[in-house]
């Protein structure tokens, strides 16, 4: 009811005026009836009524809730104060907007990636199970199918277990539409029901679908929309994958983006796997999802699986079969390597937010000092302390609200940019701001407002406040406590800045180190592209070689091409696969000893010279070493150091069980013909022993690498034309320059370094603004004192030194504090560093020098001003 009154108070005021008019006319009429003259009648009526304005006011007050009016008054007053000093207000609001915006964006990411439950049924009970080789570091090793089938049939701790692996196809329509190479996955028939996912259209896979040779496929929503225009008629229809006919049985819902959003379609796990593959205990390439029974503990369930795995390990002592298993929740599995950088960013942003708050608090303390007398007078007139505090907090609330709104707007854009720029953020669910993020932003906003407002408000409205009236400004003694508060705020601010600077410095150094790393081959002007020859058309090694060699010959003949190579991959693209091997000429391994392994790569005879990988000894492949005569292998320098210490490797034989030739399964010995220089499979990782097999043994998939004389991207269209002229149906994918490939693997390192550096620089600016502000304030406070000193004979440079030391003291304290804190803090992200360590002397001295330089600069201006004071004028200052 009182709200109704409050909302209608304008109307009730105008009604009251009408009533008053009525009264006056009635009274005038009565008076006239008593025989007064009209003028006298009106005058008497007015006299009788009294002060109409007062009646209106009292009704207005009666209709207004008093606390509300107080708050409104405070807000209005704060608004006026703020708009009187627009410079200060804009700076403070911009600071808060930046800090809150960054915090909101990062929280959005963290929430989407780490905190929000997965959209699967009862996702808390979903875990990923991996194989684990004891002895090494904890590693999450993909699972061999035979192990999975044993786990599933022999253990009881899980409701069910499902398996999937990455796959890929050439997708064409039944009427020979444009071919497209699509990333896909192959999953066991129970995968979707285990996750609790219903197809949006059609049906799920059934047990009967999951057989070798089955030709059913489920589309993800993205390919359904993009390629099939969202036409539901495709369900039950047919598509071609690698030239084979598949029936579309279902379409997955649009939110389903597991394991990531690149996967376009799903086939069944066994559809394209040979029975031998499925019986392998060393074909590590699959991922196992399991749903825990509600009444079984995870440790118990995993122990059962581990026991089964250990049995397998004992059964196959000579194969790389892991001894143990490890598990992690599906959520954590998806978050994977992102967790650490994300947490780091969030803490960096938290620090920045704190600095922002401290800075706004510091600025408000300064204003509070200027308003000291006003506050004292108001309190002498009877204002309560709570009212005064409320009035001061209103300012910081206004600043933070404006900043928070700006921040939310800012973070809308920033979140989108971050989600796009940050590679390998798990995208199993979309990243967007929602109600709870905005609620958190608001909560942050008000916490910030309280921190920033309460500190100065408490300091200016203390008991000592009345002293401000007693003491003259000349002594300046009442401000000592407040100056101490400002200095300690400043020390904290500088301390946190130092931590951020150290973190940023270390990350930047790591990133620069990563960028200048030599991957071991030519990287400038190199273009790469992938293609896969469909098995139906290119069914023999001869047909595959014919295409590959024809393509190479054409490309090498193109003008502007310095060299062309064909391989399975180039350095810097990632781990891909390894193979276990033994050296035939070496004594057999002891039982239980691990088989050595090395990365497997394929290369054509011209591969090494085109990529500039040096030959150490021996020779490259020849074009004669093909198909059945291809049992030659080239190894890397690291390989020789590791497995042929001091021995000449040329002419020795590698026994590689995983690389039995199709035509001759017993012939698995490869003769080493050459040794080449080391390359990095990924920037930032140690080089690993590598074996190169001849690509002319016949392979369907290949990466074409072209070294050009000029900008390589100009060659992408002509190259694709060359491929199309050889086979118009062949899809080409991932046309990238070598720099793009290496850059992509650095993008996260560069993002972490750039963002943390940005936060650190911003904090540095904030801290120096704070330093400048405090010292300027001190200077004005001490003007008369400085005047007296000068009158007594102090020299200008003495005053300069005095003021400079006064400002530098909190900076030095902060620096020391920050260094101590950063020793502890940087240890946490040690694993993200490359070629540097938490106590890097270059970074530390850089940080110390930067901070001192900025601090001296920030202090110099006010100190200089103080030393230039005219003493007579200073003494006259009141």
């Amino acid at each position: 009811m009182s709200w109704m009154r409050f909302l209608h108070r304008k109307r009730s005021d105008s009604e009251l005026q009408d009533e008053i008019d009525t009264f006056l006319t009635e009274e005038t009429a009565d008076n006239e009836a008593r025989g007064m003259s009209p003028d006298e009648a009106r005058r008497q009526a007015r006299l009788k009524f009294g002060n109409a304005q007062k009646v209106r006011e009292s009704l207005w007050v009666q209709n207004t809730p008093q606390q509300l009016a107080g708050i409104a008054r405070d807000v209005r007053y704060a608004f006026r104060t703020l708009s009187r000093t627009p410079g200060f207000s804009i700076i403070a609001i911009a600071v808060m907007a930046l800090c809150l915006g960054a915090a909101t964006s990062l929280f959005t990411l963290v929430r989407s990636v780490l905190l929000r439950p997965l959209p699967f049924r009862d996702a808390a009970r979903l875990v990923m199970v991996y194989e684990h080789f004891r002895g090494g570091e904890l590693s999450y090793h993909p699972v061999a199918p035979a192990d999975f089938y044993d786990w599933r049939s022999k253990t009881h701790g899980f409701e069910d277990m499902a398996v999937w692996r990455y796959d890929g196809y050439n997708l064409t329509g039944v009427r020979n539409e444009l071919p497209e190479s699509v990333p896909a996955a192959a999953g066991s028939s129970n995968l979707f029901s285990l996750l609790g996912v219903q197809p949006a259209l059609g049906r799920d896979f059934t047990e009967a679908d999951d057989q070798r040779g089955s030709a059913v496929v489920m589309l993800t929503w993205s390919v359904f929309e993009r390629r099939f225009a969202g036409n539901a008629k495709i369900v039950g229809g047919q598509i071609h994958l690698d030239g084979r006919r598949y029936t579309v049985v279902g379409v997955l819902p649009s939110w389903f983006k597991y394991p990531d959003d690149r996967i376009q379609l799903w086939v069944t796990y066994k559809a394209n796997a040979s029975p031998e593959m499925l019986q392998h205990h060393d074909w590590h390439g699959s991922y196992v999802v399991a749903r825990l029974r509600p009444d079984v503990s995870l440790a118990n369930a995993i122990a059962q699986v581990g026991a089964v795995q250990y049995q397998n390990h004992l059964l196959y002592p000579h194969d790389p079969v892991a001894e143990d298993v490890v598990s992690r929740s599906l959520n954590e599995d998806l978050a994977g390597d992102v967790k650490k950088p994300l947490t780091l960013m969030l803490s960096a942003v938290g620090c920045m937010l704190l600095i922002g708050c401290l800075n706004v608090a510091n600025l408000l303390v300064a204003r509070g000092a200027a308003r000291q007398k006003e506050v004292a007078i108001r309190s002498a007139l009877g204002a309560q302390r709570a009212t005064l505090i409320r009035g001061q907090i209103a300012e910081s609330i206004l600043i933070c609200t404006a900043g928070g709104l700006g921040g939310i707007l800012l973070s809308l854009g920033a979140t989108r940019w971050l989600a796009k720029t940050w590679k390998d953020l798990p995208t199993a669910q979309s990243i967007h701001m929602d109600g709870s993020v905005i609620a958190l932003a608001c909560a942050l906003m008000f916490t910030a407002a309280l921190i920033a407002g309460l500190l100065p408000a408490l300091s200016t409205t203390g008991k000592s406040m009345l002293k401000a009236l007693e003491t003259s400004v000349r002594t300046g003694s009442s401000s000592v406590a407040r100056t101490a508060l400002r200095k300690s705020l400043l020390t904290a601010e500088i301390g946190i800045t130092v931590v951020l600077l150290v973190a940023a410095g270390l990350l930047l150094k790591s990133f620069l180190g990563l960028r200048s790393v030599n991957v071991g081959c030519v990287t400038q002007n190199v273009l790469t592209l992938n293609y896969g020859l469909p098995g139906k058309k290119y069914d023999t090694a001869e047909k595959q070689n014919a295409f590959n060699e024809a393509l190479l010959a054409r490309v090498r003949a193109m003008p502007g091409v310095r060299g062309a190579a064909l391989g399975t991959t180039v350095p810097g693209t990632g781990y891909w696969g390894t193979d276990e091997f033994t050296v035939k000429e070496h004594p057999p391994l002891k039982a239980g000893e691990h088989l050595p392994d090395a990365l497997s790569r394929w290369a054509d005879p011209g591969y090494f010279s085109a990529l500039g990988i040096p030959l150490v000894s021996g020779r490259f492949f020849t074009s004669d070493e093909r198909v059945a005569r291809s049992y030659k292998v080239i190894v890397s320098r690291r390989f020789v150091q590791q497995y042929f210490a001091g021995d000449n490797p040329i002419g020795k034989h590698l026994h590689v069980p995983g690389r039995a030739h199709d035509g001759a399964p017993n012939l698995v010995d490869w003769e080493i013909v050459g040794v080449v220089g080391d390359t990095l499979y990924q920037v930032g990782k140690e080089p690993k022993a590598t074996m190169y097999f001849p690509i002319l043994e016949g392979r369907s998939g290949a990466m074409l690498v072209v070294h050009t004389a000029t900008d390589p991207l100009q060659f992408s269209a002509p190259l694709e034309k060359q491929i199309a002229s050889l086979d118009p149906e062949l899809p080409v994918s991932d046309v990238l320059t070598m720099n793009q490939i290496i850059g992509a693997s650095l993008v996260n390192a560069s993002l972490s370094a750039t963002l943390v550096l940005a936060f650190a620089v911003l904090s540095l600016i904030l801290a120096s603004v704070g330093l400048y502000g405090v010292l300027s304030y001190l200077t004005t406070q001490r003007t008369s004192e400085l005047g007296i000193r000068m009158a007594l004979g102090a020299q200008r440079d003495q005053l300069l030194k005095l003021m400079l030391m006064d400002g530098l003291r909190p900076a030095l304290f902060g620096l020391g504090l920050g260094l101590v804190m950063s020793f502890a803090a940087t240890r946490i992200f040690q694993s993200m560093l490359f070629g540097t360590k938490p106590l890097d002397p270059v970074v530390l001295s850089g940080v110390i020098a930067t901070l001192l330089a900025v601090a001296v600069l920030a202090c110099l201006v006010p100190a200089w001003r103080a030393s230039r004071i005219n003493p007579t004028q200073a003494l006259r200052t009141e």
Partner: protein
Amino acid sequence: MGKSSEPQNEMLKGTLDMMILRTLVGGDAHGHTIAKVIERTSEEILEVEQGSLYPALHRLEDRRWVSSYWGASENNRKAKFYRLTAEGRKQLVRETSRWRQMTRAIGLVMGEEGGAQ
């Protein structure tokens, strides 16, 4: 500011509401009539402060003890008329009985004849 009339005002504060309600028993009336009736009935002893009459009327309306409507006054002028509601009638009974008790009690203390009734 009329400071001298304030004590009287304070004293009347509770009773003004009651008297307004009592006045409206005789029929709907607008502010001027209400003030006039109170003054005349009290034989001009009580003078209604306009500064408290109108806020009081609005307060009574908020509490739903009176309702209001715009109509024409005796002199054919637009005026806001107030009418006693059923709720207001009950309130009047309550207030009247409390008032009676109070005056009787005060009368007893003051040793007046009226208190003994």
